């Protein structure tokens, strides 16, 4: 057994996490959505701004949405300046978060390889690495052989259908244990006096004279001076309750795990060209992810032909996974924005704020999303890191388009 696996199995959660709160009649801030981002917002409202008359409303069980369903990859090697700044802020927070929360988050900076399979992938990769370097994000360009040195089980045969031509590598990237992150944030927020209210679905948002006054829920009416929507794939539904649209489409995103295996995979590998990413979690299971399902849906289940295709892609990269067994597959509901960047900040309703549009990449941003949104809630002004991500960009056209190259070739 590896040291990692032993550590994972030896982890003791704290004696006390949080108690299920009853909703009060009113709060300074109501956060709708008890996932990672909502909990992080509550944590930083208390920690950075001293605001604790706060409720986090969760329609199901705390952190049971995408926070419980993601593949827990953390990296900050984004191309554009605004994105790099935001995700790098998150990564710096990750580096101190276990200490901050006094909770073993199993944050493992084992590095992430983003593979290139075509000359255009190589150009895009180098461009991103170079931009990262000037933005203060650690990143390297590796040729195929160097990539294999980082991940010895990677198939770099030139005979592959889409051979690995190189990779970007971010050594500080890695994975964390998502439940621990959520529970650590929840515990911190609860200890500071935040009410974590589970099984409390928001059914209406009260707006008077253009300003939010509270929310209606399955557990009664709750007044609030400020309201933040942190509901990922369900953000459009909540915004509709307040009478404005969001530029989002909700899609299932599937992930899978295998049985526990002896350590074989030391890092995280992502390949956009063949649509697959994989890491080996601390306990030993391979954690696998794919691209989003093609249709809009609010179901936490996807179509299996997507998974079959993904398995084929992974075996191209890792032939030795052939006889690993998939134990279970599941899906989250992700909110995809037009430019693959989040929507953070003000809405047409005063004192109502959103944090959404993170698509497939929200987990890694958890602490920064909470940090930035807490600032906005506290001051009613955009945080500098969040400013480029406002809704107004869909009017001006100033998108933060992280799709990168359109994958067109002559």
């Amino acid at each position, binding site marked *: 057994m590896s040291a990692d696996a032993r550590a994972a199995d030896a982890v003791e959660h704290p004696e006390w996490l949080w108690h299920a709160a009853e909703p009060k009649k009113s709060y300074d801030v109501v956060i709708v959505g008890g996932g990672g981002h909502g909990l992080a917002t509550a944590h930083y409202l208390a920690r950075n701004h001293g605001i604790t008359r706060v409720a986090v409303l969760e329609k199901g069980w705390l952190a049971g949405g995408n926070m419980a369903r993601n593949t827990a990859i953390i990296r900050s090697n984004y191309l554009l300046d605004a994105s790099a700044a935001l995700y790098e802020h998150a990564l710096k927070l990750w580096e101190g978060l276990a200490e901050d929360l006094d909770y073993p988050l199993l944050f493992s900076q084992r590095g992430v390889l983003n593979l290139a399979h075509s000359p255009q992938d190589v150009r895009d990769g180098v461009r991103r690495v*170079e*931009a990262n370097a000037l933005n203060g994000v650690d990143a390297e360009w590796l040729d195929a052989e160097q990539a294999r040195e980082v991940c010895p089980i990677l198939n770099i045969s030139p005979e592959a259908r889409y051979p690995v031509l190189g990779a970007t590598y971010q050594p500080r990237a890695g994975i964390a244990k998502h439940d621990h992150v959520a529970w650590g944030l929840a515990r911190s927020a609860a200890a500071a006096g935040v009410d974590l209210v589970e099984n409390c679905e928001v059914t209406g948002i009260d707006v008077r004279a253009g300003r939010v006054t509270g929310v209606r829920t399955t557990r009664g009416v709750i007044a609030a001076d400020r309201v933040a929507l942190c509901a990922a794939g369900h953000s459009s539904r909540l915004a509709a309750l307040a009478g404005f649209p969001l530029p989002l489409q909700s899609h299932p995103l599937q992930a899978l795990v295998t049985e526990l295996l*002896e350590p074989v995979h030391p890092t995280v590998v992502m390949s956009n060209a063949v649509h697959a990413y994989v890491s080996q979690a601390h306990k030993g299971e391979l954690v696998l992810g794919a691209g989003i399902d093609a249709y809009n849906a609010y179901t936490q289940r996807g179509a*299996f032909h997507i998974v079959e295709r993904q398995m084929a892609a992974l075996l191209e990269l890792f032939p030795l996974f052939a006889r690993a067994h998939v134990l279970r597959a599941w899906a989250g509901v992700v909110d995809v924005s037009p430019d693959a960047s989040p929507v953070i900040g003000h809405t047409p309703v005063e004192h109502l704020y959103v944090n959404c549009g993170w698509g497939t990449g929200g987990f890694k941003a958890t602490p920064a999303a909470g940090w930035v949104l807490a600032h906005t809630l506290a001051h009613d002004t955009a945080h500098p890191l969040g400013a480029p991500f406002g809704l107004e960009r869909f009017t*001006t056209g100033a998108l933060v388009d992280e799709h990168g190259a359109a994958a067109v070739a002559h």
Partner: protein
Amino acid sequence: MTSQPHRLPDRGRVDRARPLDFVFDGTPLTGYRGDTLASALLANGVHRTGRSVRLGRPRGIHTAGSEEPCALVQVESPFPEPLVPATTLELHEGLRASSLAGRGRLSPDQDPARYDTLHAHCDLLVVGAGPAGLAAALAAAHSGARVVLADEQPEPGGSLLGTGEYVDGLPGAVWAARARTEIEAAGARFLPRTTVSGYFDDNYLLAVERRTAHLGDLAPASVSRERVWRIRARRVLLATGAHERSLAFADNDRPGIMLAGAARAYLHRWGVLPGRRAVVLTTNDSAYAGAGELAAAGLDIAAVLDARPRPGRRAARAARAGLDVRAGQVVLGTGGEEHLSSVTAAVRGDADRTAQDLDADLLLVSGGWSPAVHLYSQSGGRLRFDEGLGAFLPAGSRQRVESAGAARGIGNLAGCLADGAAAGRRLVEAEGFPAGRTASYATEPEEAETPPVHLYVVPGRGGSGHARHFVDLARDVTVADLGRATRAGLRSVEHIKRHTTAGTGRDQGRTSALLTTGALAQLLGAEVGELGTTTFRAPYHPVSMAALAGRDRGRLFDPVRVTPLHAWHTAHGAAFENVGQWKRAWYYPREGEDMAAAVERECRAARTGVALMDASTLGKIDVQGPDAGVFLDRLYTNMMSTLKVGRIRYGVMCRADGMVFDDGTVLRAGPDRFLATTTTGNAAAVLDWMEQWLQTEWTDLRVRCTSVTDHWATLALVGPASRALLAGLAPDLAVDNDSFPFMSLRDAVVAGVRARVCRISFSGELAYEINVRSWEAPAVWESLYEAGRPLDLTPYGTETMHVLRAEKGYPIIGQDTDGTVTPQDLGMSWVVSKKKADFLGRRSHSRADTSRADRPQLVALLPADPHFLLPEGTQLVAEDTLPAERPVPMLGNVTSSYRSAALDRTFALALVKGGRERTGQLLYARTGEALVPVTVAHPVLYDPEGERRDG
């Protein structure tokens, strides 16, 4: 060691004439054909199959089926496979397996097996060939309906294989075999060794058939090892049975402790007595039949502990038959090191006064039965908790699915047979197939059932803790762990699952889920029903990644597209690059040449002599109809409707957001007929784009689009000598500039073949694109090549094409653009019509962001050192020294970079903020740790006056 000391001489369904040698943990052992690894190990007295994953405790064989939580072994040969249940691993000659401590190993060697996929369509899919499933299939098979019956075991019968029960006077297994024969004779399909593992929308199910693993080394290489069945069923009947579960008492995990039903199966199916002296612990009637049969077969049963204060008639009969039935007693704990040696029995609720140690090497437990509702739940079905049965049962699904037999809580054989028969009949009749008379089946009479007691946790002696009361053996989760989770404030079963990892092992909690929930209910003072279940996820049974990938591997991972000239390129030593699915000739290295040398030679030939390229991969879309001109005017930024017949125009397309989507030439072949070319990678996307507009919004336009990419091959003949060469091969074609001007087309005979010749140049040189029917391309190419020998005609590839176009400042969409670039950014305002009222993307060009002056614009860069090649992707900064702090503002990035033979230097194209205003400025390119000075230049570096295109 005596061979197979626990094997009975005359029981079971193993073939004693076929002994098999195998090795477990290095020890050579013998079993029989028909054994599983588990039954063969037990026959040899081996219980312990590994250690537990967290605590390292010895663990043994707990079940006799696929629900096994403990006995998960590493297959070492014929080929390594991790965590295979010993209880389903069919013994074969040469098997080597090892015990594990919860983690398996992958082989670094290439899996030699193949895997494939089949589709099946049926009116009724019956999952499970136990009594209910067989009765259903028998009822349905004669109706004319297409029936598929799938079962995970090698032979039909399900529970009948392990209980020794009789149907219609026949031993259950014999009856099942006959039923199979009848079902197959009626035209139904029986799939043995096939586990239905996924239940998806619209009654689409996924099953995995294990075809050769049981043959070991004898598996024929020509047969796929596993086969995925994708089954679309009008109706589904789930006859998936039920799983027995254990109870949480102290040290309930030792080797030698197994489920009562499993021991009964080892007796009847494999002729194995898994111990010498046993204690039975039960909460229900089901353990009695097996206990009696095992005793009759020679197992010494020390006591039957029945947790019920009044165990009822079956217990009474067992007592009359000589068993020591102890009403109201439970197990307090067990003793032993590597194997069970004693069991402490006591009256429930009065442990300290009544505890008694019993010597035993086997403890058989029945804590009740949990219907296998996994697939039902996957279908979208709801579950309800039945207080009487103490089980979650199916309670309605969106899909056309039902459950029958034990899968919906029916506990006796007669009931399962009748329920299955009725369901089979009902379901095919619902699809319009008359099922005829429903058979009834004779079974042995049973005493009336006494209700079970719903017991989950048995407190240990003296109020001791629960640190060794296991609820999930696979994940080493104890009642104490559940207590820690609830004391931390957690209430939801989903939280508890994540906190403790209960139910996340390889068995996905099949034997442990209800026990966990029951224990939790006790801790929280809640009802089991209100706690509910965690979500059941596909796959029901673990599926190998190779099976899911099927044939889509290697070359078949994605189709390979090649041009009609591919064989010629290969024969002439071309290096290829992947462009989308295409293999394109990249360059043609000669002896001793590297890529740079080959490309330089090819470029020089194109600029000074004559060169030939295969451009067949360019997308070609035939656009026809009276409104074709109007249509193209809406799609392209420039005007196409004014194009004269016989002429060609370059065009750019934008998406509605105003960003460049594709470019290419459009030629007009007739008043109502255009041919649009696209980039290689975008051909399908452009056709989709066109068809969507035509079919959904512009339905009034009379236009039809057809992809003709593969119909035409395109041969690009380039260079000052191209005219002479073409003239020689097309004597009837007037090739002089006035007769055949730039951007026009001619239909002509070239090398004896009808061709459409276009004067298009992507290099700035005099050039012709010769389009011929694809099957005639090799002959035409050969003719050109032969005729060109005196002129040193040089074949060139995509890399040279890229250099030549870059020297002329022609962008490549997708390389010099990235989906955020407008035509204006590319310096192509000339291609954006000012006259047209609208075209796709036009409105976006006047938004605030698209009209700002500091947008990235396409420019050329000239490194100060003319030999220095800028890496593509390099970022540009304003200053010649980098400040220490980050971020450093970036001005743009290199999109294309080449060595130019024509310019005798290196150069690059780049997108630079406000780039056109910076012409002549010095910028700095960060390459490695160095800052390389570069000068911004107009993107057209070669022949800016365009003097060369007419020759």
